[in-house]
């Protein structure tokens, strides 16, 4: 009989296999985890979020992964994280105290159409798969499609570009689904978006090059998280605002969440050692997931201990 303990988290999997693994985790840890379908992708695939909860009417922390479909190590890391979070409840004091105060929502595959497409048709696919009338090109960069400085610098108006922002903010159902969930929940206190690669831990802003009001605190938390992450295998992260660390980019998720009042908004850019880029070998999934978990935990602990 299969269970989540026998699942191979150290391998890349198709969307169907990831969704099966999610079901195994839910079946194994019923008292802590449940699965909710929060929407449907452009091509009709379910968008599932895992809810880790031990009580009613709690504030929440959101974690999503792999909004750009070709970042396979990201979705793999999120799946491992889901299992770890469930497994640790009742065993690890940090996770137990977190889940006794907060619900955690974990979206393992943020862009299911793109993920499926990257497995079957184009390994390097990054965008959604939405079709726009009048254009021969398909898809929108879902991390340029949020309602934060939408249409500003660092996003393309060209539908054929890999960073096409889309016709309007939240035009992509995958983005609108998450935004609607966050809005309707009303008590999300932390938002972590996991991407890869380039080993960065970023916080707002990206659509403008001014520091956020909570710059000092976010920078301190970010540095603590990067330091915890680095302690395991020595992986070095750069920490800072999106604009100062990489480039100005409008329409990103963590800018939107910060601007609607989610103070603790962070984005991880996971490993690459400079050799493989988006094609990180499967042997690096578990080390990546293990080190990332230490960084995520630092952020979760800070949210837990600093209610607002």
């Amino acid at each position, binding site marked *: 009989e299969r269970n989540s303990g026998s699942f*191979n988290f150290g391998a890349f999997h198709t969307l169907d296999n990831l969704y099966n693994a999610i079901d195994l985790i839910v079946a194994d840890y019923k008292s802590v985890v449940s699965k909710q379908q929060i929407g449907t992708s452009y091509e009709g695939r379910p968008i599932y979020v895992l809810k880790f909860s031990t009580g009613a009417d709690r504030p929440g922390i959101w974690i999503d992964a792999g909004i750009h479909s070709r970042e396979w190590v990201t979705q793999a890391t999120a799946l491992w994280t889901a299992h770890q979070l469930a497994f640790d409840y009742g065993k690890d004091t940090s996770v137990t105290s977190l889940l006794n105060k907060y619900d955690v929502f974990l979206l393992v595959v943020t862009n299911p159409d793109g993920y499926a497409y990257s497995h079957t048709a184009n*390994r390097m696919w990054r965008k959604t798969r939405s079709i726009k009338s009048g254009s021969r090109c398909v898809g929108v960069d879902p991390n340029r499609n949020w309602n934060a400085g939408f249409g500003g610098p660092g996003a393309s108006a060209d539908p054929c570009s890999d960073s096409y922002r889309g016709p309007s903010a939240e035009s992509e159902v995958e983005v609108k689904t998450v935004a609607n969930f966050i809005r309707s929940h009303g008590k999300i206190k932390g938002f972590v978006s996991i991407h890869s690669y380039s080993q960065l831990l970023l916080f707002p802003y990206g659509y403008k090059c001014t520091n956020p009001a909570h710059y000092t605190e976010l920078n301190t938390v970010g540095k603590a998280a990067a330091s915890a992450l680095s302690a395991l295998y020595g992986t070095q992260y750069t920490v800072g605002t999106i604009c100062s660390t*990489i480039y100005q980019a409008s329409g990103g998720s963590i800018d939107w969440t910060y601007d609607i009042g989610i103070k603790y908004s962070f984005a991880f850019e996971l490993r690459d050692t400079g050799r*493989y880029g988006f*094609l990180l070998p*499967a042997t690096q999934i578990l080390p990546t997931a293990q080190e990332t978990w230490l960084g995520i935990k630092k952020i979760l602990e800070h949210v837990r201990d600093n209610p607002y």
Partner: protein
Amino acid sequence: EKTFVGEQVLRIKASSNEKMGLLQDLQSLTHLQLDFWTEPANPNIPVDVRIPFRSLQSVKAYLEYNNIDYTIMIEDLQVIINNEKEEMEFNERK
């Protein structure tokens, strides 16, 4: 299914803002169909670019003419993708 035979990923290091500007110019040459895995924005962060086989010569010539350092990060993208596929099939069977 799209294949990537002969495509390379170059890791480019722009040593100044001026050279970063030249990489941004390269980004605007859409006919080369370059896929920037990391964007040219900050001289401290290397720029990784996936280059279709037919654009390789032009891009390398441009970089060398402008004295911009680069290394080949991935020699043939399809080889890595094939390895990845084989590994997935092996795991699936297991």
